[in-house]
């Protein structure tokens, strides 16, 4: 379903992604892990048509995202790390807008919105403005929205960041149920290793732009002689904290936290 071969992304002298290759099979839950600055976000942006690769090939359900933009976009849904809902609109309106953008016919749109909102337990609040939602509810809504156009692949970028354990648990239950029922391929990134271990079928670990290990959680643990995925991860990527500068994005996130008085995220 997702095929990445020899993908390279260079920014001038800096190589963010250095010849990586991996495959994700249909219906698989695939975790893409790595320290900060490893090249995760760049890879996801390339997969989701937001960046053009320097070289290498990417296939999403047989389509090349850097060439066939719109065809590729129809095939995936994405939940970004930062919220991308419209706070002033209601849950229903957010879903509806997505449906119009993805050209889902009206009748199907209505049915699908209802079934997804009910699945994610948001139907009762469908006419409430999203700004009144908790962080967990917003996340659920974003995932529901990403699935509205029945994509074959769904990208989840740190989906449970900042959520409490109950919400995280519930979220993964829903995602797994959808994965089993509709055979949606899930590509996720996360820093919560226990979740990746529990939920993902296969895992790839990227560091310094290169994939340092791939396989099931068990294979990675065996390979490094570790007891948990987190230990295996640390063994493979080292324990030093990655030096990073506060970027403009970090500043904006801080501002967002300040302004977002009511929400927990």
């Amino acid at each position, binding site marked *: 379903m997702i095929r990445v071969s020899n993908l390279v992304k260079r920014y001038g002298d800096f190589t963010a992604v250095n010849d990586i290759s991996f495959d994700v099979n249909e219906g698989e839950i695939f975790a893409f892990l790595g320290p900060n600055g490893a090249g995760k976000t760049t890879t996801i942006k390339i997969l989701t048509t937001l960046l053009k690769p320097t070289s290498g090939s990417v296939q999403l359900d047989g389509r090349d995202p850097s060439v066939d933009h719109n065809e590729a976009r129809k095939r995936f849904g994405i939940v970004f790390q930062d919220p991308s809902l419209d706070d002033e609109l209601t849950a229903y309106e957010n879903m509806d807008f997505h449906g119009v953008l993805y050209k889902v016919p009206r009748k199907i749109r209505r049915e699908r919105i209802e079934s997804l909102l009910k699945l994610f337990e948001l139907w009762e609040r469908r006419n409430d403005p999203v700004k009144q939602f908790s962080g967990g509810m917003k996340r659920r809504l974003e995932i529901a929205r990403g699935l509205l156009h029945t994509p074959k692949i769904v990208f989840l970028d740190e989906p449970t960041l900042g959520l409490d354990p109950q919400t995280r648990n519930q979220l993964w239950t829903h995602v797994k149920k959808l994965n089993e029922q509709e055979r949606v391929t899930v590509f996720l990134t996360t820093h919560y290793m226990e979740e990746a271990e529990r939920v993902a079928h296969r895992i790839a670990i990227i560091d310094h732009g290169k994939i340092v290990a791939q396989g099931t959680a068990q294979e990675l643990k065996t390979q490094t002689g570790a007891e948990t995925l987190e230990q295996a991860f640390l063994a493979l990527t080292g324990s030093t904290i990655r030096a990073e500068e506060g970027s*403009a994005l970090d500043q904006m996130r801080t501002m967002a936290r300040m302004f977002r008085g009511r929400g927990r995220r």
Partner: protein
Amino acid sequence: MSAIYILWLRQVKRYVRSKPRIIAALGQPLLFLIALGFGFGPIFQRAGQGNYIQFLAPGVIGMTILFTAVFSGIELIWDRQFGFLKETLVAPVPRILVMIGRTLGGATVALLQGVIVVAICLIAGFRVTNFRALPEAVLVMVLVAVMFTALGTAIASVLSDFQGFQLIMNFLVMPIFFLSGALFPLTNLPAVLNVIAIIDPLSYGVDGLRSALIGVAHFGLPLDLAVLSIITAALVGTGSALFSRIQL
């Protein structure tokens, strides 16, 4: 086509639903009308220029449209990272449609705000003397709204955070307003101010409103409409080009 409509609709819904923001935005025009209109009124009258409220009102309307429109465009910076815009950039919709929808939506909001300020001016004593030119007045307002929304979009497409926004507000938008003839007549100005007024797009908007509503013209309505149309087209083109280059 539906994409343009829902993007337009979204801007309008957001506007209509945030009553505090609407009311807050009316504070500034009101202040200008009261402080300058009634404050400078007597002096203006004595200088033989007539009723200052009459003169000022089109300027205040122009100001409202300018600020609301630029702000709608600039909202993009936030929207891009934390809002709906990311969703639209990843959807199978051509970016030009997204840009058009947003620009029309932002311009509509600026226009609505302008209309409310017209009402406030009427309450303050402004009187339209030429009702037959109302369609032209509306046309001028529409052009100004679209022009400055496109400008805001163009700027926001290039900035990546809010720091540049402050610079833009103080060194571009404020001068555009203050030096446009919104507040003072453009006759007999010192050379430098004259040149600035001539290249300031808002000058033509304010002059157009004055010509249409109270029959007082500096450049003349036909020239105003011509210049506004050209600049609007150029800015929409520039805005679209820059918008399609946005990288998240």
